[in-house]
C-alpha cells in the first residue's frame, strides 16, 4: 500500500523523464546516405546538424537500401534518410522555377526563362524504426522539412539576386538574410507569475499520487466484501451502534492511509528524485490548499472504494472491477494521456472520472502556481462527487439490508 505506489511514481517519472530528455536534451541518431554530389545536399546536412535535434551519422553513398534497413533493425539509429543523386539538381530546378515565377510577377521576367514545375522528382526517403512514436516521427519530419526549406530558400535567394544584379549574392548579405528570424520566447503561464517551466516531476508526481490513492480500492473494497461475507456486518448490526458509524470510522482510517501515501510520495519527489537524477518536486506555495485538495482526493478515492465494496459480491469481483475501473478512469481522466489531446467524446467522458477532477485541482496548484481561490470550482466538484459516491454506497447498504 505504501512501497508499491512510491516505486510506481519513481519508475514512471524516471521513464517519462527519459522521454522528455530524448526530445529536449538528447539527440536522435540519424543515418544520412548522401548519393548527391552537389552543394545543396551538403548545405542540407549542415542545416540538419545545426538544428540540434539529430546526431548525424554519414554512411557511404553506395550503401543499399536493405543495408540501411538492417542498420535500423540493429538500432544503430532510429531514423535514416537517403538524399537522391539528383537532390541538388532538384533544389536548383525548384529555385529556378520559383525565381522565374516571382520575377515575372514583379514585372522583371523578360530577361529570365521561366521553368515549368517538375513532376518526376525523386523524393528524399525517410526511414524510421517502428518503435518511434507518431509524435517523435512528426517532430523529426518537421525538422527535416525545416532544414530543406532553409536550403531551398537560400537557393531561391541566390537565384533572385543573380537574376536582378547579375552577380553572386555576397556571403555576408546571405547570412544576414538567412539568420535574421523572429525569436521565440517561451513563457509558461502561471498564476504566481513564475517563469519556471514545469518539470517532468511536477507533471507526474501529482498524477500518480492520485492513481495510488485510488488503489485503496483493492484493500478497502475487498475488506468490505469480506465483512459482508463473514457476517461481521451482521454482528455489528446487532450491536448498540450504527453501521454508518462503523463505515465512517473505516473511512477515516483509510483516509489516513491515503494521506500517508501522499506525504511519502511527495517526500520522495522532494528529497529522493534529485538523488537519482530526476528534477526535484516543487510543492505549491499554498500549503493549506494542497492539504485540502489532498484530503478531498483521498476521501474521493475512499468513497469510490466503499462503493465498489458495497456492490461487489465477491472479493475477486471487488479486486478485478476495482483495479480495471481505476485504470479506465485514470485513462479517461487524463492521467495517462493529456486531456487537451482527447477527442470530443472522450473529453465528455473525462468529466465523469473522479480522477480528472482530482488531477485538475492538483495541476492548478502544482503547474499553474494557483492558490485556494483558484481551485474552488475543483473543490466544489470533488465535494459533490464524494457526496454522490457516499449516497450511492448508503443506498446500496440499505438495499442489501446491511444498515
Amino acid at each position: 500500500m505504501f512501497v508499491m505506489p512510491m516505486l510506481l511514481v519513481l519508475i514512471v517519472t524516471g521513464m517519462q523523464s527519459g522521454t522528455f530528455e530524448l526530445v529536449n536534451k538528447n539527440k536522435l541518431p540519424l543515418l544520412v546516405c548522401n548519393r548527391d554530389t552537389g552543394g545543396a545536399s551538403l548545405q542540407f546536412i549542415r542545416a540538419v546538424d545545426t538544428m540540434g535535434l539529430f546526431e548525424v551519422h554519414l554512411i557511404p553513398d553506395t550503401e543499399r537500401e536493405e543495408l540501411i534497413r538492417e542498420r535500423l533493425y540493429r538500432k544503430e539509429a532510429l531514423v535514416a534518410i537517403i538524399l537522391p543523386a539528383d537532390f541538388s539538381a532538384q533544389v536548383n530546378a525548384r529555385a529556378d522555377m520559383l525565381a522565374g515565377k516571382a520575377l515575372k510577377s514583379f514585372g522583371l521576367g523578360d530577361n529570365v526563362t521561366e521553368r515549368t514545375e517538375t513532376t518526376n522528382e525523386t523524393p528524399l526517403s525517410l526511414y524510421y524504426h517502428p518503435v518511434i512514436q507518431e509524435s517523435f516521427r512528426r517532430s523529426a519530419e518537421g525538422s527535416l522539412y525545416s532544414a530543406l526549406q532553409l536550403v531551398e530558400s537560400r537557393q531561391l535567394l541566390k537565384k533572385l539576386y543573380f537574376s536582378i544584379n547579375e552577380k553572386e549574392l555576397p556571403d555576408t548579405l546571405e547570412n544576414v538574410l538567412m539568420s535574421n528570424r523572429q525569436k521565440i520566447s517561451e513563457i509558461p503561464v502561471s498564476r504566481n507569475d513564475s517563469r519556471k517551466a514545469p518539470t517532468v516531476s511536477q507533471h507526474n508526481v501529482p498524477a500518480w499520487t492520485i492513481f495510488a490513492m485510488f488503489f485503496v480500492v483493492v484493500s478497502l473494497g475487498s475488506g468490505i466484501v469480506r465483512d459482508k461475507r463473514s457476517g461481521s456486518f451482521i454482528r455489528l448490526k446487532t450491536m448498540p451502534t450504527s453501521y454508518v458509524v462503523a463505515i465512517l470510522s473505516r473511512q477515516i482510517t483509510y483516509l489516513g492511509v491515503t494521506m500517508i501515501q501522499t506525504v511519502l510520495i511527495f517526500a520522495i519527489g522532494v528529497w529522493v528524485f534529485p538523488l537519482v537524477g530526476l528534477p526535484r518536486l516543487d510543492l505549491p506555495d499554498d500549503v493549506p490548499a494542497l492539504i485540502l485538495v489532498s484530503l478531498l482526493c483521498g476521501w474521493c478515492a475512499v468513497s469510490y472504494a466503499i462503493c465498489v465494496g458495497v456492490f461487489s459480491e465477491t472479493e475477486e469481483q471487488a479486486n478485478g472491477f476495482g483495479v480495471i475501473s481505476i485504470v479506465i478512469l485514470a485513462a479517461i481522466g487524463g492521467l495517462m494521456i493529456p486531456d487537451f489531446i482527447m477527442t470530443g467524446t472522450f473529453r465528455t467522458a473525462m468529466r465523469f472520472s473522479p480522477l480528472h477532477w482530482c488531477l485538475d485541482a492538483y495541476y492548478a496548484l502544482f503547474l499553474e502556481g494557483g492558490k485556494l481561490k483558484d481551485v474552488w470550482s475543483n473543490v466544489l466538484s470533488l465535494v459533490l462527487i464524494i457526496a454522490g459516491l457516499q449516497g450511492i454506497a448508503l443506498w446500496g447498504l440499505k438495499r442489501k439490508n446491511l444498515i
Partner: protein
Amino acid sequence: MEDMSPHQPDHITPHQPDLPRPAMQIEDISFRYPDQPDLFSHFSLRVEAGQRFGLFGPNGAGKTTLMNLMTGLLTTSSGTIRLFGHEMKKHQRRVNKLFGYIPQDFAFYQELSPVENLAFFGAWSGMTGAAIHKRTRELLDILGLAAVRHKKVQQFSGGMKRRVNLAIGVIHKPRLLFLDEPTVGVDVQTRHAIVNYLKELNESGTTLIYTSHQLSEAEELCDTIALIDEGRIITHEALDSLLLKHRHEGLEALFLELTGKNFRDQSV
C-alpha cells in the same frame, strides 16, 4: 417484579435493576420476503427470562428468519417484538445492549487475534478499555484460548473459531443470548465445553434462545422448546412435560412424529 438476572453488567444498564419479564415477547407479527407469500402471519411467542429455550423445526420452517427478526436483522411488517419490555423497532440501540448474538457463520475478523477481535467488538458494544481487558482475560481463560490470545484467528481449528465466535457474543455480558447452531462442525470436547459454558451462563441469569439440528445436544441444554413448521408453532412447552405427554424417550422421535418424515428442502 423480581429481577431474574443477577449477572447484569454495570456498564451497560446501570439504572435498570428491575427489568420486566418476559425476556422475549413476540406479539402478532407478520413477515414475508419480497415476492413471496407470508412466512409468518399473526405469529406470537413468549420466552421467559432465565429460560434455556430451544427453537426447532425442519429446514425452511422459518427458524433463521425468526432469529433474524428477534435480533432486529429483519423487520416485521406488523406486530411487535419486545426484549425485556423494550420494543425492538422503537428502541433498537437500547435493546441491542441487552442481547448477544452468536451467528452460525464465523462473524469476526480472521486476520486479527482473539484479543483484537474482542477489543474491537467490545468497543462497539459500548465497553470501556479496562472492562474489555478484564472480560477478555476471563473469557479466553474459560474458553481455553488463553495460550493463543495473540495468534491470528485464521490459523485456528474450527472448534477454536467457534469458541472465539462465542466469546465475542458474550463479551458485554448480555442478559439474553441468541445462539444459531453454536456447535456445528466441532469435536466432542469443544461441544462439551461450549454446552457447559452456556449452562453456566444461564445459571448466572442469562436467558438462552438456541437453535440447532443436533437434537441430542438440545435435550442436554434446553429446558423449554418450541417446534415450528411453515411459520406456525406446532408445540411450545417444557421439554420434560412434552416428552412425557407424547410418551417419547427422545427429542428426535418426537420431532419426527410432529413434523413428519418428508424432506422439506426439495426445491431451491
